[in-house]
């Protein structure tokens, strides 16, 4: 099984402070993996480093056999990596439809018809709200829009940062099943979550981060029985 994306010994700094230290991980085609850990453990920084909005100070990132850690975010998204950032970050003073168009910014407008249909298939609520100002959507709808915007880039890898944050349990469950659906269409997913219960259910493999380093990794089924994981992250 060839890796879709592979991080080799990635270290990232904010100024003098080290946010991520020597992280290596790999994701196979069409797989879901999850990064769990407390606030400030470096999860979001890892996603930003993959999408190129943060540059690593050491290490390499390979995507489909090509090195990408020196590329601009623009080149990275063009290669098929879509970043759905933490706290939705939709464009609030733009219509829902325009938000979707930003996701497909680098693609020809004549090509995006099928992608819109795909988005409406996953998120039926979005179709009814196309003309609405995105900032007026509910939290759950904004999360759906953020994911839909990501899909409009037609990615083969989606970086999902805390999609469950601040959402009601019912909405979390719905987001979870949409993540599975998207993955079944052949999109690899790196899921960052504080809601480890949800993350472990969706992902095949998990990496546990503490203060910028991976302290534990393995199949989610096995990790579920790990005492440290149970106590620290699942609250069992």
């Amino acid at each position: 099984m060839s890796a879709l994306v592979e991080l080799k010994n990635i270290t990232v700094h904010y100024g003098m402070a080290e946010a991520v230290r020597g992280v290596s991980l790999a994701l196979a085609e069409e797989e879901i993996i999850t990064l769990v850990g407390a606030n400030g453990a470096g999860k979001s920084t890892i996603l930003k480093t993959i999408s190129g909005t943060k540059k690593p100070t050491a290490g390499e990132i390979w995507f489909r056999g090509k090195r990408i850690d020196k590329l601009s975010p623009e080149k990275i998204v063009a290669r098929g990596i879509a970043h759905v950032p933490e706290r939705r970050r939709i464009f609030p003073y733009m219509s829902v439809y325009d938000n979707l168009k930003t996701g497909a910014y680098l693609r020809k407008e004549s090509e995006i018809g099928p992608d819109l249909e795909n988005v409406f298939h996953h998120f039926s609520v979005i179709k009814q709200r196309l003309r609405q100002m995105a900032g007026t959507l509910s939290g759950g709808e904004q999360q759906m829009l953020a994911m839909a915007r990501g899909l409009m880039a037609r990615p083969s890898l989606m970086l999902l940062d805390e999609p469950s944050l601040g959402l009601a349990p019912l909405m979390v469950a719905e987001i979870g099943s949409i993540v599975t659906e998207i993955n079944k269409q052949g999109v690899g997913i790196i899921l960052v979550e504080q809601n480890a219960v949800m993350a472990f259910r969706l992902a095949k493999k998990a990496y546990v981060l503490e203060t910028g380093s991976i302290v534990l990794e393995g199949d989610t089924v096995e990790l579920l029985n790990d005492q440290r994981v149970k106590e620290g992250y699942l609250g069992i």
Partner: protein
Amino acid sequence: MELTFFLQTLINGIQIGFLYVLMALGLTLIFGIMHMINFAHGQLYMLGGFFVWWLFDIHDVNYVVAILLAVIIVAAIGFIIERFLLRPIRGQELFVMCMTIALGSFFEFAARTVWGPLDKAIPTVVPGIIKFAGVAITYERLMAVIVGIALVIGLYLFIQRTKAGLAMRAVEQDPEVATMYGMGINRTYSLVFSLGALLAAASGALMGTVIVVNPVMGTAPMLKSFMIIILGGMGSIPGAIAGGLIVGLMDSFFSSLFGIDIAYIFVFAVAFTFIIFKPRGLFGRG
């Protein structure tokens, strides 16, 4: 106040208002998207006026072509300023402010050196006056208003309907996410600053044909534009339009009634009031 006098003052106010709108739009776009204040905006306006005079009056270039060329030249100057003078210091607010102040003085003294300090009148190309109901407006002023309105509509459509406009809105609202989806900040900033310069130049070119051009002609309109975007809401396009028209009307009415100096005092007093009691202006967000 007599009805005719009222109508005449109203029409003058709208005419001057639209030129303020153009100027303020440029300033507010640059502020809203690039988060900086362009203190050289008035001098870009002045260059717009001077290039029209220089091309049309000195080099006999066709009038319409002269206006188009003047606007394009100043937009290109805007592009160069952003690319080579502002980009290296982006995010360092104090340096950016000093740079634009320095640029403003640079252009003012350059214009004085090259073209001299005296007023230059751009000859009238479309002489004549329309009169109705006792109100008179010169063709020249009417043309300035029509071109002004056309530019405002054009700008609106550009921002709302084109891909570059989509990127401008995205970069304004969340530059980091815009970058994630391939909307380059550098490209957008170049476009925005050039567009801002273009609008200032268009305003100066149209105003120059109506009044006169000289090296300091930009100072007063620039100060008024600051007041306009405070009134309308910094960064807001509808705000710049409403604010420009309001200030144009205030200018016209107060100067007809009380003289031009009092009119100035009023405009700035209104600005103080907004800064204290409604700092986000009429259309500001948040």
